[in-house]
């Protein structure tokens, strides 16, 4: 049982880790040196966050 629970934790961790890697791959992004290291937005999703209430109204 203890082995099963530990294994479940590892699997969950692996799931999130691989999901992150897959999403990076899909979107062509990387964790690299952080947003400031890549001048913000030119290589990944760190351009200014658009507040929901403003984004729809343009």
């Amino acid at each position, binding site marked *: *049982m*203890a*082995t099963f629970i*530990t*294994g479940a934790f*590892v699997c969950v*961790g*692996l799931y*999130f*880790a*691989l999901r*992150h*890697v897959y999403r*990076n*791959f899909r979107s*062509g992004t*990387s*964790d*690299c*040196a*952080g*947003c*400031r*290291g*890549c*001048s*913000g*937005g*030119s*290589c990944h999703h*760190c*351009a*200014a*966050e*658009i*507040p929901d209430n*403003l*984004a729809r*109204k*343009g």
Partner: protein
Amino acid sequence: MATLSVALTGNPNTGKSTIFNELTGARQKIGNWPGVTVDKKVGYTRYKDRAISIVDLPGTYSVNARSPEEQIVIDYLMNNKIDLVMDVVDSSNIERNLFLTVQLLEKGIPLLIDLNMQDEAERRGVHIDVHKLEDAIGMPVVTTVGRSKKSTQKLLDVFTSTVMSKYQPSQIVKDHIAKVEAIEAGVGTEEEKREAIIEARYALIDQIMAQAVDLSNVGASKSEKIDHYLANGFLALPIFLLILYAVFQITFTWIGQPIADWLADLITVDFYDWAGEALTAAGVEDWMVSLVTDGIIAGVGAVLSFVPLIFVLFFCLSFLDGTGYMARIAFLMDPIMRACGLTGKGVMPLMMGFGCGVPAVMGARALDSEKDRMTSILVTPFLTCGAKLPIMALFAAMFFPDNAANVVFAMYIIGVVMAIVAAKLLGGTIFKGKGSTFLLELPPYRIPDMKTVLLETWDKGKGYLVKAGTIIFAASVFIWFLSSYNFDGPTEEMSESFLATLGGWMSSLFYLQGFATWEAGAAIISGILAKETVVSTIGILYGAGDVDTDEIEDTAETMMQTGMFTAFTSLSAFTFMVFSQLYTPCVTALGTIKKEAGGWKWMFFSAGYQFAIAWVVALLVYQIGSLLGFA
């Protein structure tokens, strides 16, 4: 809700990104060199019931559409409906900044002129009469001091109250535009027309300056006095090397390494033991205990223990950047780079490569000529990115404990030298042609804003932590599996595992380099996934935590007891460091090279030629080292 669109334009280093960040709350990279804002950024804010969208355009000196930045600016301004275009002007350098202002007016773009950095202008003795400037140009003028709540408030007030259609260019501007149109329609070569237009622009600027700006009190600035020493032809390079040496001492000897050693003990010894005992006591089967301790904790822990080094190094570099000193390095490197086929402007993306190759490769977009851009893309991965740092730190601390900082410093220098040599080789063979000229404005020296420095350090370090928790975690599990199983199932002997087979194939290439062990081969293969994985693989294969804690003093000794000293001599360890420094970039960087260079061909070329160069250089280092009697 009424909406308002604002575009920020201006020369590089006039504080546009700071204003953008203050207005929108975004954390955009603010740099002291051209090309930091390569693409336009969009942010949003709300003020007095108005939704305001703000676009931060790349800094340019002109709008002739000759560089990618200029193209972005002119395309955006000419093809979008914008309520207000704000031209951010560095007040302390108004004469040169007006050159862009005049060009924008020539294109019929009404401007709100923001005289930014008013405080610095006052300190330098530059006095600008705002009302006279408004009259001289015919456009509204506002004054700001960059990072200040008062300035932000003032700008938002101006944005929401200014109606640009009320303003018309002044008579002297109208006359100038007519003159430029006449020159363009007249006879003469393109070059003659261009020179005549530039002359006309400066004539207009002289008129505006005479009407609105008093420079009679301008003396040598503090920055100019400092540059007398720091950018001095003889002293500049030694001072730069001295500063860099101090950074490495701080990172690898004085502050970073002691904390890293402590953290390494905590994770790979104390936590390793505690987790192993706790899981065993809970009745977890041995193979699962091994996965958690020998795989995940040893692998991820080996990488995590270098977090303090990463943070200390990035803090030092961000601090130097904040002072304005980094821009001087480009100035300093220009003649060297030019002699080797790159321009000084190419130094900027290269310097990003010390953080991570991915943004550095992307930063090459800012380079005007195709030759410079492709060369920069292909040589950047030679530099020591943050991910290679743990490899260097691990081997330096273990094999050269008394000279760790010097050895890591040497690796950085080797990376730079190889990048320059490769640029020369590529420039003389594949990318022949003329490079672009380099025009760099040296920013004034400033006391860095600690909040910005800390945020920048955190952002860079955070990327490293995320990688440790994701790709390194997954790779550690994978490496553990490969090192614990073979076709017959679980194996007690790692040397009979899948990984030993794979590593053995790879290691057969390195007999002449002195590290032909399957463990080194496996680490090299895993490093293509992410460079940190070299360290996590070594952590797993040599069992960083699998020792008696009573006999442990630090990570290096831990490693020593578990076999690294039997696998490497000092010379082969140094050679392995050199190879790791130079060989094939990680998959993320390769993907970026494919995207930026325009195809699989360049990606495979980059992977192949870097591996070949690393192999040859490692061969030379080991063989010459052996001949000289090093072991």
